[in-house]
């Protein structure tokens, strides 16, 4: 039996159903009105538009912007090459046509695969390449037989070219064929329309980072097509706008000298103009030839690059992380002054070892340096001084101070996927490790942090930024490779403004003391041999980073396999009184910094400041053992 209340509720519900039905009706009437408007009232108009739609828009790919160095030397350009292309709408049997073409011209399975993929994505009226980079003989062979292949033609297309080959590959990167992931990126940037007809896209380096600036604006051609979709004639053409040109802060000649200086050695170098943050040279060795990627890399070359033990595809300048070794010491000394833990004159006695918590920390110099003040601690690179200092400062102060110089955080260089490195601190250890025992920070771990070992790990770009900031008296710039972007249409330049990120609050007196000690390094210290007779004053600091720790054993270079040799480091700037260039260089497994890394810096400075060009890779300077 139903209650009256139930009926009332039901009636209310039914009223709502009626309202809903009314809404449905209203909306359907609206739709119908719209359809009547389109299909009856406006029929004639749309009928004509559909007829006009026999006009098809075919995209014209713009030529990609150039990349030039600060002196307008071309690092990346485009060259015309012939491609064999098929317009599917004009070809009866595509598979058969390709088989016949293959009898004339070498067509690899990879070419067929790409063609199939592009065919599935594109419109049937657009010309799709089946073979790229035809040589003259192939072009001639096809032209003679062209009558047999309706809808197939040879077209001149522009291809990316890196005239220097492997030169500056770490900065330039490369372009390659558009993949699904690139399509996502294009869609995210809302650039689908502009990328119609574009088959290549920046994958790495500047090519990747500045993709949308370099690409340009796609033009289009209005083609009249017949009812079967065949192009009858061209009605109009909107020219594409070429991509913008990138002018780099990079100095190609300096870059070349740096790359030559490495010879066959592995490593990285970053040179920065301290007053702007502009990168003068960015080296990762070994490098690779980006030209290999332009039209899709063949699997053998790809395998070579990827499986090489030297890892050429690793951009060591921004993704290699290394312990800074003794190059950490000037910053440690600066921290000591800033926190009032040392005065410049205060000397310690170094017996050659430092005991802490039952553990013995060795100094590199057998028997020790004796009495050492701050100046000598940097010039001679005394470890014991910094073991003690690290203990007196404590890990929290060290981490806070070094963090200010950008160590352990991304510099913001205009290259993607920069590594963070490790600025060790109790908080970092807490988040890095899983087990409670490992999470704890031990006081003994602070000691080796003081000489740039332990958990310390920074990228060369971070070290370069830190030394450039020091050279610049604490004023920090974001390191960048692009100086300005030129709009090819208007000629207008978009300058990458060198704005200081921040100024580290440092006492100018303290900076002066540290700089004086770093000048001492290159005059009478560990860098003296490399910089003998330079003709300008330079400031530097050598470093040697242990690849693995030798517990108690004596370090004998020749007895250990080469890849276990220490990394050689050097940070420097010059001229010391008015720094124009600051750099960090790392030679992997190069041994002592003074031997392998400092001579590279010497060649760089000699060219940049004096215009002297070296004739051979940087020499390895022999120094007596135990200096670093």
């Amino acid at each position, binding site marked *: *039996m*139903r209650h009256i209340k139930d009926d009332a509720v039901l009636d*209310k*519900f*039914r009223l*709502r*159903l009626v309202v*809903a*039905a009314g809404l*449905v009706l209203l*909306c*359907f009437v*609206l*739709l*119908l009105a*719209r*359809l*009547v408007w*389109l*299909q*009856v009232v*406006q*029929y004639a*108009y*749309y*009928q004509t*538009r*559909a007829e006009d*739609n*026999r006009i*098809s*828009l075919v*995209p014209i790919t713009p030529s990609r912007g150039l990349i030039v160095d600060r002196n307008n030397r071309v690092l990346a350009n485009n060259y015309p090459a012939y491609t064999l292309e098929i317009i599917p709408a004009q070809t009866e049997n595509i598979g058969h046509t390709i088989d016949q073409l293959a009898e004339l011209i070498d067509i690899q399975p990879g070419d067929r695969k790409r063609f199939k993929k592009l065919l599935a994505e594109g*419109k*049937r009226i657009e010309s799709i390449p089946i073979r790229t980079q035809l040589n003259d003989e192939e072009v001639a062979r096809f032209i003679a037989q062209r009558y047999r292949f309706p809808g197939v033609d040879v077209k001149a297309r522009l291809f990316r070219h890196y005239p220097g080959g492997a030169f500056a590959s770490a900065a330039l990167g490369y372009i390659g064929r558009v993949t699904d992931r690139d*399509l*996502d990126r294009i*869609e*995210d940037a*809302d650039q*689908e*329309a*502009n990328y*119609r007809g574009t088959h290549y896209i920046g994958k790495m380096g500047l090519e990747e980072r500045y993709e949308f600036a370099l690409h340009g604006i*796609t033009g*289009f051609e209005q083609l009249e*097509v017949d*009812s079967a*979709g065949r192009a009858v004639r061209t009605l109009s053409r909107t020219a594409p706008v070429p991509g913008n040109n990138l002018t780099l802060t990079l100095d190609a000649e300096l870059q070349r000298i740096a790359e030559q200086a490495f010879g066959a050695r592995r490593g990285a170098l970053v040179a920065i103009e301290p007053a702007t943050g502009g990168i003068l040279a960015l080296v990762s060795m070994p490098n690779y030839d980006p030209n290999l990627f332009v039209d899709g890399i063949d699997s053998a070359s790809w395998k070579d690059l990827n499986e090489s033990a030297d890892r050429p595809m690793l951009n060591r300048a921004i993704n290699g992380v290394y312990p800074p070794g003794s190059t950490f010491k000037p910053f440690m000394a600066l921290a000591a002054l800033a926190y009032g833990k040392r005065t410049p004159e205060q000397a310690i006695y170094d017996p050659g070892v430092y005991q802490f918590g039952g553990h013995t920390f060795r100094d590199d110099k057998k028997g020790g340096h004796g009495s050492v003040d701050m100046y000598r601690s940097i010039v001679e690179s005394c470890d014991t001084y910094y073991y003690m200092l690290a203990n007196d400062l404590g890990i929290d102060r060290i981490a806070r101070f070094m963090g200010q110089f950008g160590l352990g955080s991304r510099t913001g260089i205009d290259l993607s996927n920069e590594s963070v490195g490790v600025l060790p601190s109790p908080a970092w250890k807490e988040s890095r490790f899983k087990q409670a025992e490992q999470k704890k920070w031990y006081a003994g771990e602070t000691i080796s942090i003081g000489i740039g070992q332990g958990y310390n790990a920074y990228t060369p770009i971070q070290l370069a930024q830190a030394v450039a900031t020091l050279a610049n008296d604490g004023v920090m710039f974001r390191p960048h490779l692009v100086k300005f972007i030129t709009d090819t249409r208007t000629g207008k330049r978009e300058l990458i403004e060198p704005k200081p990120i921040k100024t580290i609050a440092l006492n100018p007196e303290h900076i002066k003391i540290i700089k004086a000690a770093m000048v001492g390094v290159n005059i009478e210290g560990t860098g003296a041999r490399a910089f003998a007779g330079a003709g300008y004053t330079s400031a530097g600091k050598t470093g040697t980073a242990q690849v693995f720790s030798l517990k108690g054993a004596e370090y004998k270079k020749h007895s250990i396999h080469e890849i276990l040799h220490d990394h050689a480091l050097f940070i420097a700037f010059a001229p010391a009184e008015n720094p124009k260039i600051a750099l960090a260089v790392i030679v992997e497994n190069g041994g002592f910094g003074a031997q392998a890394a400092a001579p590279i810096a010497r060649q760089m400075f000699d060219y940049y400041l004096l215009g002297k060009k070296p004739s051979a890779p940087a020499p390895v300077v022999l120094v007596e053992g135990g200096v670093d």
Partner: protein
Amino acid sequence: MTTNLQTVLRIGWHKFIAPIDVPLLIICGLILLLAAVVMGSAAPERMGAHLRSLAIALMAMRVMAGIPPHRLMRLAIPLYCFGIVLLVAVALFGDVSKGARRWLDLGFMRGQPSEIMKIAMPLLLAWFFHQREAHRRGRDFVVATLLLLVPVALIMRQPDLGTSLLVLAAGFYVIFFAGLPWKVLVGLLVSAVATAPVAWSFLHDYQRNRILTLLDPEKDPLGKGFHIIQSTIAIGSGGFLGKGWREGTQSQLEFIPEHHTDFILAVFAEEFGLLGNMLLLTLYGFLIGRGLMIAAQATSLFGRLMAGAITMIFFTYAFVNIGMVSGMLPVVGVPLPFVSYGGTALITLCTGVGILMSIHKNRMLVQK
């Protein structure tokens, strides 16, 4: 012997068709037939796949029709929670496809969990109001709204505006039919209009572009505006009678993008004209009418709310899709119900039809 077998078969057959509502089946069948015809023109190469997913969808319909409402109600909470968990999983580990995180790869299957919510959401809310029937309070509407906004926010974040609007609509219909006070409803409408400029600032760039493109499609003839321009040309040039099956130049020359999925109406309208459109609208009208009738005759609150909401969802699909393809509404990813290619949507829709059938067939059983 033969008679025995015949009896068994006859009983089996009766059991099989017992839960099926014939009027609904006929209406859906006619729409699906139209769908197959237009698919044969828009994407004949996908016909096989389309028929396969259609078979699965019809099975889903039959299965749902056989589940009585009180059993269905038991699924409300688990299904809703399952959907939420999947949505969170998508947000955390989903595959990014076309710039949005919508897909989840579960190893054995890859699916769009947001689809589940189109059923799970009205199911949960209908169950919720059913539970509260005896002691209804104003607060229930607040709780229901919160339950609704969680998945909507998650789907919107993917970002998938189309699906989030459908889920929002599904939940809203339940709340509306449950008796949301008119005052609140009017207040919501007014505040929605008032806050539109604020909402604008929360939209993604691509969503804003779609709205801007709607206002002036000629501005972006190679990109987003292209879809709208080409589909309105296709519809308009179809005229009253249409150009005939497989004769649509717009469709056959591939001027219409996504011509077998969201924009299939443009192909249909070009080839079958206004006459075809009126037929389609009439069929949708019948479908919605039958659904509302089932809601009106349902005896439990759950049945009424569920049937009303599902029916209105069908309406929303149809209205939003036709409105979008004909250039009245911005482009959001909503398929034409029962017609667009795409298995997931088809299964969801047929599941809805199955639930409608079950509510109708079981109306006598739950009567007090």
